[in-house]
Each structure stands twice: as structure tokens, then as C-alpha cells.
């Protein structure tokens, strides 16, 4: 669910393991659990920010509670997002504004639900359709999930990639939003790059080429690139393997989720690199892409994308292995404070890791881009 819900929702799990178990088995309703039996763990751990801690902190805290056995759905991978308090708060406010009885519980609830509906109605409807429960009456069950990936294509100050004339804008590049997707700015970089940067930088690039005619396609570079693409398409179609593209996509997703996700360690990342490499080899040997090349073929398109993911996934693991500090969404279990918070290592890791493509992901070469802070002093934020 959208993070905006955390503005008014309170996140909790049961305090007692037996209550969590009873809820999982369907013998206890969350609304029946007394206030003192609930653990509002974000408010407990981070009293200053409460439910509004950044998403990496909130995600890890949810995982920590669920790993400890306090998860509240069938799979044990869910915490509650509860609007009951917000409904009462807004309801009383509305009753007060309208000069109505603030002690009338039914009235307050109705007024409060109206406010919540006007603010979050579309998200509540989405939840109701997926889960088949009414989130106005019972807390929502939420859990962190993969949303976007952080990092992207290296670009220079003009947003041009290492290929002259090839520009990458928006979240596809590594510069701002793509670098660390922890804020609520999904469209910001696309708009800023598209409206304010590209009109100048691309025009500047093209100005040198204004009299360049049509570029011939009978060059050796063009032929080599065309042959690469054709060979890959032929290989997929003629492979006639035993597993679908989705089979590999799911397997890769599981490796990434387990070993290169919210919490990472050296052994897991090393394993992940080997597992992904093996999976990639298996993919090229045994993938099955039905149909032919010259038709609308979704499986073929997907095969090309999953082939890329199988390289990128391994590079993610390599990058995470190299960076032994914890920083933002990247949490290395070896680098944490006694309280379990992310511990940065500014002395050794104040740089952007740009990886130079070198065929196999394991052979990618690290190009460090130093981060120089002139106007601000680098500090560690505390949400306590």
C-alpha cells in the first residue's frame, strides 16, 4: 500500500506471541485485542518519528517483528496498519467544528471515516478489492515488498551515459532519485530531467551534429550490434527448453528477496552471486520461448528482460558485498549499532559505486566516484 497511509495509520503487532498465533489461526480478531496488548513498535523504538520513520527503517522494523514470530497473517509476513485512532481523532475534530456532540461515538466514527475516505479512499478501495476485508472496520495487513530498485545507469552532469549521444533520464539513471529511492518523489526526477535538464543538454549535444547527414548502417559496429540481437532472439526461439521464462524470473526473485533484500550478509551475498550465475547458465540452456520471432510474442520480450535481470541481479549482489557498511536501504548485518540500527562507515565508503561493464557481472570493474560535501557536514540521523 502507498506510504502516504503512514501519515495517519498506526503500525502494530500483538505484544504476546500467543495472541499473534491466535490471530494467524483465525481464533482472534485484531479489533478484539486490548490496547495494552498491542505493540506499536515504531512508536516504541522511534518515539521522535513514530510511524513516519523512513521506509528503510520501517521495513526493517516490520521484518524484525515478523522474523521474531509476531506476524499477523497466514504466512506470518504482515503487520497491522490501523486507522481506528485517526478515525476518532478526525471525527472529534469534525464534531467540534460543526458544534456537534463530541462524545457521541457513532457520530464521531461516521464523521472520522468520512475524512479518512476523502484522504485515502482510493487506497482503501484498492486494499478492500485485494484482501476482501473492509479497512474502515479492521486494520490493514501490510508487509514490505520490492517496489523499485535503487541505482541506475551512470550518467554525466548532462545526463549522458558513457555512450556518447545516449541519454538516460528519470529513475533509469543513478543521479538523484534513482540513487536512493527512500523519499516520496516517484515522478520528481522524470519531470525535472525532462523539463529542465534535457532540453538544454541534448540540444547542446546535437548542435555539433547539425550538419551530420544520415548515419550509414553498413558499418561494422552496426552489423555487430544487429548480429548480437539477432543471435539472442534466434537462440531463445530455437532453444525449445523445458522451463518457462517466468520460472526463471521467480527463482531469481526468490534469491534476491532472501539474500539481497532488506537485510544482507557476506555469506548470503556470496551464495547469491553463485546461485544467480548458475541460474543464468541454466536459463540459456533450458528456457522455453514459444512462438516465433515475427509476431506479437510476449514471452520472447520477457525472455530478453529476464536475461538482463539475471545479469543485473548478480551485479546487485556484488555491489552489496563490496559495500561492507550499512547505508540507507542497504543494510549489512555485520555493520549495525548495538540497537540494531544501520551503521555507516563514512571513512571508507563516501563514494558512489559505478560498475564498468565487462561481460560477466562478476568481472565488473569498480569505478569510485568520490562524494564531496562542501556546504554540509555529514551526520548520522537519529529517529529515536
Amino acid at each position: 500500500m502507498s506510504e502516504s497511509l503512514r501519515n495517519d495509520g498506526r503500525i502494530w503487532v500483538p505484544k504476546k506471541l500467543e495472541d499473534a498465533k491466535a490471530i494467524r489461526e483465525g481464533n482472534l480478531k485484531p479489533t478484539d485485542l486490548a490496547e495494552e496488548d498491542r505493540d506499536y513498535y515504531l512508536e516504541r523504538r522511534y518515539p521522535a518519528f513514530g510511524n513516519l520513520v523512513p521506509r528503510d527503517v520501517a521495513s526493517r522494523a516490520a521484518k524484525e517483528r515478523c522474523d521474531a514470530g509476531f506476524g499477523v497473517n497466514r504466512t506470518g509476513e504482515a503487520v497491522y496498519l490501523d486507522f481506528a485512532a485517526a478515525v476518532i481523532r478526525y471525527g472529534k475534530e469534525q464534531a467540534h467544528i460543526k458544534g456537534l456532540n463530541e462524545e457521541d461515538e457513532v457520530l464521531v466514527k461516521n464523521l472520522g471515516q468520512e475524512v479518512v475516505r476523502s484522504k485515502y479512499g482510493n487506497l482503501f478501495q484498492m486494499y478492500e478489492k485485494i484482501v476482501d476485508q473492509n479497512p474502515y472496520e479492521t486494520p490493514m495487513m501490510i508487509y514490505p515488498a520490492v517496489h523499485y530498485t535503487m541505482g541506475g545507469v551512470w550518467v554525466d552532469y548532462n545526463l549522458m551515459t558513457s555512450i556518447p549521444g545516449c541519454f538516460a533520464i528519470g529513475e533509469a539513471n543513478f543521479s538523484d532519485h534513482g540513487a536512493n529511492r527512500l523519499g516520496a518523489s516517484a515522478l520528481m526526477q522524470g519531470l525535472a530531467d525532462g523539463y529542465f535538464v534535457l532540453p538544454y543538454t541534448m540540444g547542446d549535444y546535437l548542435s555539433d551534429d547539425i550538419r551530420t547527414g544520415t548515419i550509414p548502417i553498413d558499418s561494422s559496429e552496426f552489423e555487430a550490434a544487429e548480429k548480437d540481437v539477432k543471435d539472442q532472439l534466434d537462440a531463445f526461439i530455437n532453444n525449445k527448453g523445458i522451463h518457462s521464462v517466468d520460472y526463471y524470473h521467480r527463482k531469481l526473485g526468490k534469491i534476491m528477496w532472501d539474500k539481497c533484500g532488506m537485510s544482507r550478509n557476506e555469506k548470503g551475498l556470496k551464495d547469491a552471486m553463485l546461485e544467480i550465475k548458475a541460474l543464468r547458465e541454466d536459463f540459456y540452456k533450458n528456457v522455453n520461448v514459444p512462438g516465433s520471432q515475427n509476431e506479437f510474442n510476449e514471452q520472447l520480450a520477457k525472455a530478453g528482460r529476464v536475461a538482463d535481470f539475471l545479469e543485473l541481479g548478480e551485479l546487485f549482489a556484488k555491489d552489496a558485498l563490496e559495500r561492507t557498511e550499512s547505508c540507507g536501504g542497504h543494510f549489512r548485518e555485520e555493520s549495525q549499532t548495538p540497537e540494531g540500527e544501520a551503521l555507516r562507515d563514512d571513512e571508507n565508503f563516501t563514494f558512489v559505486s559505478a560498475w564498468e561493464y565487462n561481460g560477466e557481472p562478476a568481472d565488473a570493474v569498480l569505478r569510485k566516484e568520490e562524494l564531496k560535501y562542501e556546504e554540509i557536514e555529514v551526520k548520522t540521523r537519529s529517529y529515536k
Partner: protein
Amino acid sequence: MNLTLKIWRQANAAAKGNMETYPISDVSPDMSFLEMMDVLNEELMVKGIDPVAFDHDCREGICGMCSMFINGEAHGPDRLVTTCQLHMRKFNDGDTITIEPFRANAFPVIKDLTVDRSAFDRIQQAGGFVSVNTSGNTQDANSIPIDKHDADKAFDAATCIGCGACVASCKNASAMLFVSAKVSQYALLPQGKIEATDRVLNMVKQMDDEGFGNCTNTGACEVECPKGISLENIARMNREYYSASIEG
């Protein structure tokens, strides 16, 4: 759940299509309709049958890609949902479900259940925008006060995701609800006033050129619209169109 699916199969735009029947078993009621289709395709591929092509992208009801005419209704039997938000719990064990593409002359079938809705893109390109100079002197949007009711109505119109359910549901294959939502979203705001005349004339012309039918106010579009776009927008577009015709 065990179901029988009757699905429209068509190799490409030129090919003659036909309905094929596929049984599917052990469907979880918690699956979305598209997840059920994913499972079907996995099974078909194992049997060496070409998987069913269907449109999908975000799978959270905001992109407008998923189409499908399910049991005679765009996006199936549930209200205010796209196909990805339709869950199998809305069906019963043993049901036969008929799945067809969105049908309209202006939406040619690409393959099976996927249709080409680029006609909508061309209508948008004809006028669905405001021209703003981003050279550095851009006015702060908050410096123009807008009545809350107008802002809400513009927002409601802007929630149109361009899925084409209105066209598929209309007996005339009219695109009036879509175009009127796009026109209204700007007509209600001061930022849209400057280009209002050209906008409505150009968008309506493009709509007609694409071969969409006329509106006869049956209201099926409003019922099937996953975003609840109101017929009021069509009235607003007609008004915009008439005043633009007089000015134009």
C-alpha cells in the same frame, strides 16, 4: 475452484479468430483474474499450446493496460475495478467464463486479447495538454487560487486511466467518455483556459477521424468505467465544443 474458460484466440489482426475452451483447476479465490491467466498460460506452455496474449502492466489498477471483456462486461462483473483488481472470489466453482478482447473498429486486435489502443494516444496528442514554458520563469501553481469544487471535479476527470472500457461497453463504440474526461480535466482549471478552443475542436476531430462512434447517451460507459468517470463530463465537453465552434 475449477473453471471452464472460453477464450478468444486470434493469431494477428488479419487472421480470423475463434473461441477456444480451456479447463483450469485449483484456482485460488484470492487470485486476481490476471494471476489466473498467468497460471493458465504456464499450463498451456507445458502442453505446447501458444500462451494467450493479454494486456497487463502495473497490476494495481492505475495504468489502464489490462483490458478483457469478461462475461460480456469490460473488466468483468465487479464495479469500479480494472481486470487486475478483479479477484476470482467474484466467481463460483464450476463457472464457465467467457473472455474476449475489447471490441471496436478503432481498437484493432493485435493478438488474442490484446488490442491496439493507440487511437487514444493520438487523441491526447491532438490537445490533451497545456503548454507551459519551463525556461525558468514558471509561475508557482499555488499562486492561482482555484475553487475546491472545481479542483475536485478536475481531479475526478483526471483519474481516467484511458483503458478503453467506455468504448468497449458502448454499443456505438463511442469514445466520448474518455475524450470528455481529458477535455474536462483542463476545462475546469485556469491553466487550461488559454488553449481551450483549439483543444476541444482538435480532440473531437481526432476522435471522429479514428472511427469512434457517436454518443447516444445510453450511459453504459459510466457503469463500466473502472474510475467512475461521470457522464457530466460529456455534457461539459459538448458545451465546450459548442462555444469553441462559435468562437473558432
